[in-house]
């Protein structure tokens, strides 16, 4: 599948934003972090900033952005519509939660409950995003049981790491224990990603050029002539191919540069005094950001759509 920059930016940025807001809600309901106004201002500013950046960039690839409101109507059947509804709804509890924290200096009681509702709606929104992809039977790489956990754990990790940076900056004593949670999320992301890639290699249930044409009884099917001499929308949108050795190199970058290296940095940060820990966490966040962008690029680039069977592929 063609890896459109707008969709990569949308899914990674909004994932991190929702992850950050969700963690703020969790910490508030558990009463683990005081409603420091400065921390709240920056944390919510960053969280909402990323979410809005993501949502705006997702409308870039629409043919008619001005009609985007129509996408809220078909939640009964469409995950894309459900994502829209969940995203709009999430602004309500998370907005009130943020106001309570930043304006009133409160994140306890009713505000903590709002925070919890905000967390749950953040999770639901990210889950809907994942399901848009996971529900497409035409793309085996996405129609995988690992797609949903991967989106959720990566949102939790990226949002969590941003929060870790902020907790460190504000000298919150929680930074230490929360660092351990972030390390666990790194491990979980690594595991999910490896399992996801392993499931990709298994092509047992693939559609084939034979099933696509129904001509398998007559022998092995291959494309003799494409319908037109030039490329078309389908080939541009779904025919994107990444060379195997590039894909392998990029996977290694995701694993080592994007996940293992920031893991080590966060781990080192736990041992370092205040400022050192913050620097380590900031570096880790930059590496993770690059890693997740590459991971999301690969998620598209490595996904083969069954329509390619009509354009020369033998299995998809």
């Amino acid at each position, binding site marked *: 599948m063609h890896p459109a920059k707008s969709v990569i930016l949308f899914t990674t940025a909004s994932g991190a934003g929702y992850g950050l807001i969700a963690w703020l809600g969790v910490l508030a309901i558990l009463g683990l972090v005081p409603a420091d106004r400065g921390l709240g201002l920056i944390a919510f500013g960053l969280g909402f900033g990323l979410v809005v950046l993501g949502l705006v960039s997702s409308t870039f690839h629409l*043919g008619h952005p001005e009609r985007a409101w129509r*996408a809220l109507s078909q939640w009964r*059947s469409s995950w894309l519509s459900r994502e829209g509804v969940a995203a709009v709804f999430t602004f309500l509890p998370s907005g009130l939660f943020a106001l309570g924290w930043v304006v009133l200096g409160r994140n306890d009681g009713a505000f903590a409950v709002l925070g919890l509702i905000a967390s749950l709606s953040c999770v639901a929104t990210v889950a809907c995003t994942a399901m848009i992809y996971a529900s*497409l039977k*035409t793309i085996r790489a996405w129609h995988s049981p690992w797609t949903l956990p991967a989106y959720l754990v990566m949102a939790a990790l990226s949002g969590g790491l941003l929060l870790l940076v902020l907790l460190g900056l504000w000298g919150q004593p929680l930074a230490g224990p929360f660092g351990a949670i972030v390390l666990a999320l790194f491990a979980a992301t690594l595991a999910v990603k490896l399992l996801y890639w392993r499931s990709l290699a298994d092509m047992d249930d693939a559609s084939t050029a034979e099933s696509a*044409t129904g001509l398998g009884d*007559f022998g092995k099917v291959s494309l003799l002539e494409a319908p*037109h001499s030039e490329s078309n929308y389908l080939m541009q949108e779904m025919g994107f191919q990444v060379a195997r050795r590039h894909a392998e190199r990029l996977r290694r970058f995701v694993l080592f540069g994007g996940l293992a290296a920031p893991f080590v940095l966060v781990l080192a940060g736990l041992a370092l005094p205040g400022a050192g820990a913050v620097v380590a966490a900031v570096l880790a966040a930059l590496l993770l950001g690059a890693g997740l962008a590459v991971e999301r690029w690969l998620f598209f680039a490595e996904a083969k759509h069954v329509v390619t069977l009509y354009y020369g592929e033998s299995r998809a």
Partner: protein
Amino acid sequence: MTSLPRNPGPTKLGLVIDLDICVGCHACAVNCKEWNTGGHSAPLTDHDPYGADPSGVWFNRIHSFEVVDDDGDSRTVHFPKSCLHCDDAPCVTVCPTGASYKREEDGIVLVNAEACIGCKLCSWACPYGAREYDEDAGVMKKCTLCVDKIYNENLPERSRVPACVSTCPAGARHFGDLGDPDSEVSLLVAARDGYALMPEQGCAPVNRYLPPRPKAVAAESSGVSALAPVAAEAGSAGMLARWVDRMLSR
């Protein structure tokens, strides 16, 4: 409403395409483009049509496949493909706006260009590559089964079939009600073991394909000796022949 019709009627209009007969002339694709660029989903925009890299929206495209059996005997199959007007159309259920819908009365799958936001998700959900995005209009386009032709009372009755069907010079395309087991198309499908494409995708397409008939004569027993490759002989060709060859291959 992008949910599939709750009470689908018995009628399922669709196409039956005879792969034994199709000669791959692309006439159906051309006439489809011709009719539909003024039809329900008009226009079928082209980009750079006379330039170096032309592209554009087509509802119907003809692929050609080679099928080689275990003995190395091969055949060419021309393979027209357009929307199969699936019963369980995933393109309809994924649509967030309600722009894509399946008609209750005849099962035709259409796009409402007024409501489409151009998110392209339906084209990702379709296994058959039946939906093409119109960059200019910013909306999705697809085969309408010539909904503006098949019910058109201004046309003589025999013309009330999709443009591809009326134009096929070989008679490889049939149109009718595949929901009625006694319709001509249904009888044809039954007689020729017509099949659905990629049933494993679970879309329950309505259109059917008729398989090529067994070859009357196998290649090696036909008594026709294979032609010797021309290239090897070129050196021995006469001077005039070589000159003609040079002139022609300029």
